[in-house]
C-alpha cells in the first residue's frame, strides 16, 4: 500500500471560479475549508497565510472564506502550522479546528492525538485535517537562492511557484521560467530525506496535483471524518469529481513517485542507522514491508 490506506480516490476540483483562478491546482483545500466553514463543520482553520515577506508563509487561523482564500496556493517553505493549533483552541476558542498539513506536520498532529502528553484538550478539537502531497520542503533562503541565482529572477516579481513535470516553475507577470528539479534537490531541508510519506497517509483527506490534468487534483478520502466532509461538499456541488480511471496520467504516476520517495528515504534511514545516527523509523531489515510507512 504505497499510497496509504484510503476509502476512495478521485480526480476533483473546486467548482468556484474564483478559487480555480487563485488556487494551486484543483483548489480542493480552499474549497473544502470554505465549505466546512460555511456549514459550521469547522469553526476556523489553521492555514499557511501570507506574511510581510514575499513567499514566506506564517501560520494563521482563518475564520472566514476570505481569509482562507488569502492563504490559497502552495508555498514551498516552512509554515509551522502545528504550532498554531494550540492558539486556535486557546486564544480563538475554536471547538472544531480545521488544519492543512504536509506529511511531517500530519505526523506531529497524529502523534499528539494518540499521545497528548502535555497538550491539554487540543487533540479532540482537530475536526478536519487536509493533507498535501509533499516530496520535499525548502528553507526560505534556499528558495530565494535558487530562484534568484539559477533562474535569475528577482524574488519580489514572482507571482506563482509550482512543481510539476520534473521541473520547478516560476511565473512572473511576463515570463515563465523553469529549473530542473534535479538542480533543486541539493537545496531541500535534510529532515525530508528520511520521510517515507509522499501522499500524506495520515490526513483525513489528502490531495495534490500529481495524477490528474492541470487544474485538477487527486483526492484520497482516508478517514470517516474526511469522508463525511468530502461527500457533503460533492453533493452540495462545491467540488466536482471524475473517476481516476478517466484521467491522465492517473494513479500509476503517483504510485511511482510514492515508491521512489519511500525507496530513497529507506536507503537514507538504513545508512543513518549504520552510522549510529538517530532516526525514529524502522530500518528496512526491521519490518515486513520495506515500503510501509513506519
Amino acid at each position, binding site marked *: 500500500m504505497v499510497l496509504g*490506506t484510503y476509502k476512495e480516490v478521485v480526480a476533483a476540483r473546486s467548482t468556484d471560479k474564483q478559487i480555480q483562478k487563485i488556487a494551486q491546482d484543483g483548489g480542493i483545500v480552499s474549497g473544502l475549508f470554505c465549505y466546512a466553514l460555511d456549514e459550521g463543520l469547522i469553526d476556523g482553520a489553521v492555514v499557511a497565510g501570507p506574511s510581510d515577506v514575499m513567499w514566506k508563509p506564517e501560520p494563521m487561523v482563518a475564520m472566514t472564506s476570505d481569509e482562507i482564500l488569502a492563504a490559497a496556493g502552495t508555498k514551498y517553505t516552512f509554515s*509551522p502550522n*502545528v504550532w498554531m493549533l494550540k492558539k486556535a483552541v486557546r486564544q480563538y476558542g475554536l471547538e472544531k479546528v480545521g488544519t492543512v498539513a504536509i506529511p511531517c506536520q500530519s505526523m506531529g498532529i497524529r502523534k*499528539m492525538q*494518540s499521545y497528548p*502528553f502535555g497538550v*491539554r484538550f487540543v487533540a479532540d478539537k482537530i475536526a478536519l485535517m487536509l493533507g498535501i502531497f509533499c516530496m520535499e520542503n525548502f528553507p526560505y533562503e534556499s528558495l530565494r537562492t535558487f530562484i534568484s541565482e539559477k533562474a535569475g529572477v528577482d524574488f519580489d516579481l514572482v507571482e506563482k511557484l509550482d512543481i510539476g513535470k520534473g521541473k520547478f516553475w516560476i511565473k512572473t507577470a511576463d515570463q515563465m521560467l523553469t529549473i530542473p528539479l534535479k538542480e533543486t534537490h541539493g537545496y531541500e*531541508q535534510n529532515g525530508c530525506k528520511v520521510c517515507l510519506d509522499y501522499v500524506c497517509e495520515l490526513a483525513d483527506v489528502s490531495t495534490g496535483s500529481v495524477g490528474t490534468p492541470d487544474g485538477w487534483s487527486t483526492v484520497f478520502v482516508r478517514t470517516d471524518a474526511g469522508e463525511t466532509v468530502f461527500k457533503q461538499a460533492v453533493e452540495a456541488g462545491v467540488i466536482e469529481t471524475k473517476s481516476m480511471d478517466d484521467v491522465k496520467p492517473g494513479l500509476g504516476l503517483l504510485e511511482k513517485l510514492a515508491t521512489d520517495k519511500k525507496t530513497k528515504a529507506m536507503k537514507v534511514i538504513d545508512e543513518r542507522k549504520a552510522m549510529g545516527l538517530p532516526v*525514529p523509523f524502522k530500518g528496512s531489515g526491521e519490518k515486513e514491508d520495506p515500503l510501509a510507512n513506519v
Partner: protein
Amino acid sequence: MSILARIKSFLGMEAKPDKEASQEEVEKVAEEKAKPRIGYIHLSGCTGDGMSLTENYDILAPLLTDMVDIVYGQTLVDLWEMPEMDIALVEGSCCLQDEHSLHELKEVREKAGLVVAFGSCAATGCFTRYSRGGQQAQPSHESFVPIADLVKVDLAIPGCPPSPEIIAKTVVAAINGDMDYLQPMMDLAGYTEACGCDLQTKVVNQALCIGCGTCAMACQTRALSMTNGRPELNSDRCIKCGVCYVQCPRSWWPAERINQDLGL
C-alpha cells in the same frame, strides 16, 4: 487475581485491547477486570498533576469508583502505614535533604508493583531542578532529583502537568495490560535529563527537524518559538519538563498505534 498475576499482566501477558479510553471502554473494564490497587504519593510537586487527573470529568467517577481502588494517598485515604499496591503514582521530585521523602520513595518501590513517575517533576525534575534552597520552612532543601535517580521507575508520564487525556489513556491501558500503548512511557522512564535544548542536540543537530512546529505547540511555558522553521529556545522560560522532545514526531514514532487510532 494475585498481585503477581496482575503485575505479570501489566508486563504484557494478557490479551491486548484495541480501543483507547472511552466511556464504553471504562464500563467494559469495570465489569470485567479486578480493580487494581492504586496509591498516590506526593513528593515535591505543586499538585498540578493530581488536578489534571480530576479534569477527566466525564470518566472520573467510574474511573475512581469502578475501575480502581485508591488504597493510599495524602488527603485521599485515612491510612498511615503504606499498604501493598499494584500501581503507585508518584507526583513530584525527591528532595535529597528530606529524609521523609527519601524514605517514602524507597518504601514505594518495595510496596508497589509498578512505580509511575507521574508528571514532569517526578519524571525529569522539571522546574524543581532550578531550586536553590533558602525558602521557609526548610531553607536547606535545595537538591531535587527525578525519582528515577533514586529508585527503578517503570513508567514515566511527563507533562507539567500531563494532559487529562494522557492520564486517562494511561490508566485504562495499565488496567487493561495494553503494553503496546504503555511502551513509549516505559522507554521514557530513563529520560531524566530533559531540556528544551534536546530539540537542538537530538533533533536539529541530527538533521531530523522538519519545522512542523509540534514542539512549540507542546511547550507548556511558551519557551519555544519557531525561527526559520526551527525551534528556538528561550532558556529563561524552559522548565526542563521534556514535553517538547517527547511530543516531537522525530524523537520516537508510534506508527502502529496511530494507524490503529485512525482506523487506517
